[in-house]
């Protein structure tokens, strides 16, 4: 993480190329054969058409053809077949892309999709194959666009969104308008210059082009600088812009198309313009209104689905889609409707549906949007490699230039104004990042492609220009934004830090995250509180299921623990075989001279294995759901904490001092470890195991799972997990590793001493422990460990006698 080097870039391509040759081969073969057969079919069909009567007659009397055993009917499946091939191809490429783990951090995934699309386009062009008509207006607007927007709306983190909603609306709304009109007007002025041969492009067409080229897709680059941990409001601005931008562009686009379809340009009066503005507002607000209504309806319905949880995802998707369609019927903005629907219903639906439905919904949404986007990009690639381009140097270059200029203008101007009203203004660095993340995506291309040719005789030029802008922004800006963000972040990325510094930095990051969590989120209190009150009093009562068993969370947690414990044992983390540790005492006095490689490897270990600091923002990746590492990490930490908590609660059980080791069996409960010397350790382990199986209590199962194996480990885990009260039955105390301190013999010798060891656990006897300092390593280890970890108050001691009695 601290060392990003550029050479990764070149190596990345080698990785996913191996995948591609197979796919290309497959694709080529697949296309060639059908080629041949479709020609064949063509000819047979044509002959048949020439003499239909003959055919029927022939069929009536006696067939002159044999029934063919093998036949190829490619036409029948052509469209779904090729579409499926495309999607598979993109998925294979994505697998390759992610295999090399540094690559996603270098370039956005849209780059990959575009490359795949271009390759498919090249193949189709090369084989002169007619590509299936995936993209026409109705298919795009009815089937391809809604999933993309739904996914964006669903995964948006609501709290930061509403906290920053003023800035987001101001920036997204006005920004889109400024960009659209700015670019349109500037291009119009350019078109007026006779030398470029563009004078037939009138103002309306330029404005329309401006509106479609200003549809940015900045979320695509979020994955690239995610690691730089941009601050939350910045993240939200980018996300919010992406979300609202599509909707606004489409609304503008439709209005301008309506204008274009109207009378000629000269007939447009100010009244029309005002009507256009009013329409803009109504379309936007109306769409949101529809979306909210549908969101509430679907949340309400999910309240009753506990018995047929299989249809829960269906309800969610169908209602969202319905909101889109209903809004489109009334010429309102379907995009804003579906976004509002997703945002509204998310909170309630998540509480109502079962865990598996929730997961299904998330994954299915990602899948749908990913399929849509893939198809659009591939189609973009197909139309790139083709003969239908019109290249006009002036138009294209100026388009590029104006896109950047107007984006810069809108960013800096709008943020300057909104900073006056914000408690935490956006710095210039943030604004630069926002400016630079103006990457265009599938949205612009689709709108350009769907321009009606009748109204736009120079449509090809527009398409070419759009393609150029997309390629430029995605590749050049997408790849360079990572280094730019890291540079702006003033991170000393290239300097090798010493191990000390790494450790301390990570500690401070964790500390800072923790303190931030203690401080909580600060927002506009009044509005949020009022909404929360309203929500609690009315909405939740209506929309959320009654009798939500709170214990479902608890049982889930326990299941997690048990499952993890079982896994750990099975994967050998807690294997007893790993035991054998040199004596502790000598270590500390010997100052080892470490070679640089050792230091290097240590640093490596640290970097790779230290827990990540918790991201306070929901980090959003457009193409992937968050990988499991953070969950795994959270589980580990939680389990460890649970154990230390339980341990600390059990500290109250006092071990009567001075009892010889032998008698501690009976009172094992009172102190967590200390086991008579395991001459027959293995047999004892076996016995423990047997006992364990009879135990039904979940927590203790886990403990036993650990204790059974975890006696004398090197594995760090045991030190954290094991020292819980293990409740071995039948009076066999479990032995908690004095971790590295013990070889068998040592342990034998210290049996009695071992009995005293747990002492430092207890508050009450801390002071006595201090005197035991001379025992050296182990004791100080335990002391620092326990007294540090467990400082719970004395009241805990007494409260836990009931637990004691139970056994």
């Amino acid at each position, binding site marked *: 993480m601290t060392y990003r080097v550029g050479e990764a870039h070149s190596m990345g391509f080698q990785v996913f190329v191996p995948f591609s040759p197979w796919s290309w081969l497959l694709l080529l073969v697949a296309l060639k054969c059908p080629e041949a057969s479709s020609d064949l079919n063509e000819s047979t069909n044509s002959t048949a058409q020439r003499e239909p009567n003959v055919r029927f007659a022939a069929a009536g009397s006696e067939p002159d053809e044999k029934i063919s055993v093998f036949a190829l009917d490619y036409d029948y499946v052509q469209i779904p077949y090729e579409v499926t091939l495309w999607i598979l191809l993109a998925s294979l490429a994505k697998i390759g892309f992610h295999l090399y783990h540094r690559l996603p951090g270098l370039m956005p995934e849209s780059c990959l999709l575009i490359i795949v699309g271009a390759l498919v386009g090249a193949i189709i062009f090369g084989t002169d194959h007619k590509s299936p008509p995936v993209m026409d207006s109705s298919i795009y607007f009815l089937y391809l666009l809604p999933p993309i927007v739904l996914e964006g709306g669903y995964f948006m983190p609501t709290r930061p969104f509403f906290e920053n909603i003023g800035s987001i609306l101001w920036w997204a709304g006005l920004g889109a308008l400024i960009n659209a009109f700015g670019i349109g007007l500037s291009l119009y002025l350019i078109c007026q210059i006779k030398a470029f041969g563009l004078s037939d492009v009138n103002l309306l067409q330029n404005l329309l082009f401006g509106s479609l080229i200003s549809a940015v897709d900045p979320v695509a680059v979020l994955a690239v600088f995610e690691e730089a941990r941009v601050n939350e409001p910045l993240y939200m601005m980018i996300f919010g812009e992406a979300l609202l931008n599509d909707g606004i562009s489409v609304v503008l686009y439709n209005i301008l198309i309506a204008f274009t379809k109207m009378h000629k340009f000269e007939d447009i009066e100010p009244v029309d313009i005002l009507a256009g503005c009013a329409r803009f507002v109504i379309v936007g607000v109306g769409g949101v209104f529809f979306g909210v209504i549908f969101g509430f309806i679907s949340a309400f319905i999910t309240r009753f689905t506990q018995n047929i949880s299989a249809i829960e995802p269906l309800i969610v998707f169908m209602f969202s889609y319905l909101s889109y369609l209903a809004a489109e019927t009334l010429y309102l903005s379907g995009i804003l409707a579906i976004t509002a629907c997703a945002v509204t219903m998310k909170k309630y639906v998540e509480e109502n549906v079962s865990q598996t439905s929730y997961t299904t919904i998330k994954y299915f949404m990602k899948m749908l949007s990913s399929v849509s986007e893939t198809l659009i990009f591939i189609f973009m690639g197909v139309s790139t490699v083709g003969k239908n381009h019109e290249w006009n140097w002036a138009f294209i270059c100026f388009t590029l230039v104006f896109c950047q200029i107007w984006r810069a203008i809108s960013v800096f101007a709008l943020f300057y104004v909104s900073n006056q009203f914000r408690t935490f203004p956006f710095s210039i660095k943030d604004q630069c990042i926002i400016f630079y993340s103006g990457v265009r995506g599938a949205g612009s291309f689709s709108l350009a492609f769907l321009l009606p040719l009748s109204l736009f005789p120079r449509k090809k030029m527009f398409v070419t220009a759009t393609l150029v802008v997309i390629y430029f922004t995605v590749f050049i800006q997408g790849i360079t934004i990572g280094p730019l963000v890291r540079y702006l972040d003033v991170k000393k990325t290239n300097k090798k830090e010493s*191990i000390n510094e790494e450790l*301390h930095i990570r500690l401070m990051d*964790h500390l800072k995250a923790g303190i931030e969590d203690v401080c909580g989120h600060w927002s506009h209190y009044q509005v949020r509180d009022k909404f929360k009150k309203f929500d609690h009093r009315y909405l939740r009562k209506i929309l959320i299921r009654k009798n939500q068993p709170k214990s479902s969370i608890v049982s889930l947690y326990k299941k997690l623990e048990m499952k993890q414990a079982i896994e750990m044992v099975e994967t050998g*983390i807690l294997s007893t075989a790993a035991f054998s540790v040199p004596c502790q005492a000598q270590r*500390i006095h010997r100052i080892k001279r470490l070679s640089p490689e050792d230091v290097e490897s240590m640093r490596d270990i640290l970097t790779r294995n230290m*827990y990540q600091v918790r991201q306070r923002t929901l980090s959003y990746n457009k193409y992937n759901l968050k990988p499991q590492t953070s969950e795994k990490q959270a589980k580990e930490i939680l389990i460890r904490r649970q154990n230390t908590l339980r341990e600390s609660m059990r500290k109250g059980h006092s071990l009567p001092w001075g009892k010889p080791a032998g008698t501690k069996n009976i009172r094992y409960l009172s102190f967590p470890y200390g086991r008579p010397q395991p001459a027959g350790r293995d047999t004892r382990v076996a016995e423990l195991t047997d006992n364990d199986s009879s135990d039904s209590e979940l927590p203790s199962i886990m403990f036993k799972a650990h204790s059974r194996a975890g006696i004398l480990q*090197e594995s760090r885990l045991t030190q954290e997990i094991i020292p819980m009260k293990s409740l071995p039955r039948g009076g066999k105390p479990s032995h908690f590793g004095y971790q590295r301190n013990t070889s068998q013999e040592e342990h034998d010798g210290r049996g009695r001493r071992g009995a005293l060891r747990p002492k430092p656990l207890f508050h009450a006897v801390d002071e006595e422990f201090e005197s035991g300092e001379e025992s050296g390593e182990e004791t100080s280890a335990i002391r620092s460990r326990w007294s540090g970890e467990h*400082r719970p108050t004395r009241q805990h001691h007494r409260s836990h006698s009931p637990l004691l009695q139970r056994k």
Partner: protein
Amino acid sequence: MRGVRRAPGIAGAGSRGPVSQASLLRLYHRFRALDRNKKGYLSRMDLQQIGALAVNPLGERIIDSFFPDGNLRLDFPGFVRVLAHFRPIDDEDPGIRDPKEPEPLNSRMNKLRFAFQLYDLDRDGKISRHEMLQVLRLMVGVQVTEEQLESIADRTVQEADEDGDGAVSFLEFTKSLEKMDIEQKMSIRILK
């Protein structure tokens, strides 16, 4: 609420107070929100119920740092006092500070001292090798073996330890971090 500002301990070090007025108000709201049973003080349990702290590897220690000297109750001044360490350092008026007044809580030294206390559990003023090892254990995933951890802890102490006593004192700690931008790492914007 007005009285909070004048409550003992809130006045803090320096004329500017530990945190700004606006932040103080927000912290007070937060304190009230955390205090579920409206007891007027916070107990450990209240802080433990902050979900996000539970998955923080240093969660327990952070909570401990709010309860110094074995206190059981955290009142509002104490709450603010701890959080004041994380206020961003003002660059504005370095010269105005009266040298006789105690250092403001959010000075670099005090921030470092706060971090130091996370390591030094027994408060002996030194981070022993074991304390370092404890912290390492907390912060590293389960797949690292004990031996590796020990050698890393060894090395860490060795790097910082100058007087050869096998432990890292506070001065050695500060020295090892002199190149770090502590102010930025241990500052929280919202406490400005």
